[in-house]
């Protein structure tokens, strides 16, 4: 088996991004859509850290730290939107929230 290179980490990051995208596109439950988004953010983090190692500096680690903080803020706001949606509609199925679809 060839040694693990930066390309391996980039490919793994691409696969995780694909899995997250699959979840976002196919699921109807808003909480699971949000989980797919978190998975995509994590795939980006993996690529950041791999590139930091590849280029021999710590910029990627700092980026990842900030992405994690932003993901935490995003999760908190998105979950409170879901609670508000649940109060309004009685479910968090995305098909029930289509008023703006036109």
């Amino acid at each position, binding site marked *: 088996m060839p040694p693990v290179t930066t390309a391996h980490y980039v490919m793994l990051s691409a696969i995780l991004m*694909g899995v997250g995208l699959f979840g976002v596109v196919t699921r109807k439950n808003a909480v699971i859509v949000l989980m797919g988004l978190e998975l995509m953010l994590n795939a980006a983090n993996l690529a950041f850290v791999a590139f930091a190692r590849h280029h021999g500096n710590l910029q990627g680690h700092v980026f990842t730290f900030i992405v994690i903080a932003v993901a935490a803020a995003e999760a908190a706001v998105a979950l409170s939107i879901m609670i508000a949606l649940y109060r309004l509609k009685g479910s968090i199925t995305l098909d029930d929230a289509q008023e703006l679809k036109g």
Partner: protein
Amino acid sequence: MDDASFWLGGLTAVTGGLMAVTRRNAVASVMWLVGAFLGMSVLFLGMDAGFIGVIQVLVYAGAIMVLFLFVIMLLKLTPAGLARVDRPKMTIAGILAAGALTAILCAVAVASPAWTRDGTDAAIRARTGTLVQGRTAAVADRLFSDHLLPFEITSVLLLAAIVGSVALTKRKV
């Protein structure tokens, strides 16, 4: 790049992620996603990113996933009648979109000699003179010098998120 941690962590992360987005029960999804995040943490530790690896467990697998669990249990989400993948028509579109994205990114990675030939540990060490160690002190040194402004802005963002979630969930009186 530690080979064992790459294959172990990568397999855990991909399996956990796939199971998380296909489970019918949202609580089971959260549990699989925690497994996926632990696998990601192993990947970070394998790349000597100790600080990020620990933050991954504390913030993602700990705080964010507990928040997900709280909300799921608060909302009484019964999985009644939900198909495993909720939109049968969208499954094809999902597989196509995800497959195309993954294939394009993988093709770029394989075709790039800078990442394959020059991406081994030995080549990185020869080129940059070092293999970075993402210890807390080293990351903090970068964070509080070159990247101080983004760090401070992040604190404002977190404050906005706190105020926003309280405002969104507060019952109107």
